[in-house]
């Protein structure tokens, strides 16, 4: 049986289908998971996709955090279950306190949509082990609230523990502290990323195929493929 990766659909998720497609292209089976159920359907990893869960009312990800499926995911993640949060999924992970910090309004106030260059800073996590240290990749970035903010102490902790997994290169899109595009938790099983790897999995529709490496990394990690 092939490796099962769940993709959660919240009301207002947009990129769940692209995420599921990326999972399949990486060689795993994509299993749709629904926000209103706490059933993880025996998946071995989960992707929280981009979009505007629950309309992004209150704060991005603030209401999604209390969805029944998130209770199961938070409990599992605390025991090492792999979770990748992309864009809105990253915001949900921060609101759930699985990752530190928060994502706030872009410094320039505009919604941005661009092909963004990133530098991979940590290749030890479950979702980034297929990259080489310092590798530069180009994947789409599209959000209105992507500015990573945290206090000085948290920033120092993230930097000293090598938990910044990717940084924006050549262009500062949103005023994120230390140009942070993505971070991981202490164990490296939970990764949040503002740009969208699932939109860069084939040259026909994306700026590169770099995004596929995130999804192949988890397969490599879990089943050595």
């Amino acid at each position: 049986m092939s490796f099962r990766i769940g993709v959660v659909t919240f009301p207002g998720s947009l990129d769940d289908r692209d995420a599921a497609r990326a999972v399949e292209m990486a060689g795993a089976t994509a299993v749709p998971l629904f926000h209103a159920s706490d059933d993880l359907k025996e998946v071995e990893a989960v992707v929280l996709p981009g979009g505007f869960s629950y309309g992004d009312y209150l704060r991005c990800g603030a209401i999604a955090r209390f969805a029944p499926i998130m209770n199961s995911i938070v409990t599992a993640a605390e025991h090492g279950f792999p979770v990748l949060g992309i864009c809105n999924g990253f915001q949900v992970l921060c609101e759930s306190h699985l990752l530190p910090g928060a994502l706030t309004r872009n410094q320039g106030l505009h919604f941005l949509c661009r092909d963004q260059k990133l530098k991979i800073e940590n290749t030890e996590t479950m979702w980034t082990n297929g990259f080489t240290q310092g590798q530069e990749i180009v994947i789409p970035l599209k959000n209105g609230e992507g500015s990573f903010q945290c206090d000085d102490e948290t920033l120092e902790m993230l930097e000293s523990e090598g938990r910044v997994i990717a940084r924006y290169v050549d262009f500062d899109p949103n005023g994120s502290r230390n140009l942070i595009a993505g971070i991981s938790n202490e164990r490296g099983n939970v990764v949040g990323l503002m740009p969208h790897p699932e939109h860069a999995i084939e040259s026909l529709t994306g700026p590169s195929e770099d995004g596929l490496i995130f999804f192949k990394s988890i397969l490599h990690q879990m089943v050595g493929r």
Partner: protein
Amino acid sequence: MALIVVEVMLKPEILDPQGQAVASALPRLGFNFAKSVRQGKRFEIEVEGTPTAEQLAQVEDAAHKLLSNPVIETYVVKIEG
């Protein structure tokens, strides 16, 4: 009927681009009084009768868990009307 109000503000050290945009719009309209502007949120919660200590404690809990994100925001709970 009483009103419990929760006011949520970004912590001072958190960048507030919305507040900055308002601050830079004011002088364009001839309003030159503002040294800086911070923008926040206000929740008006109606309850029957006079708020009880228990209700206020629940509102505090909700303000901490849902209405604010303690990582970037602070809140105050007060009773109005």
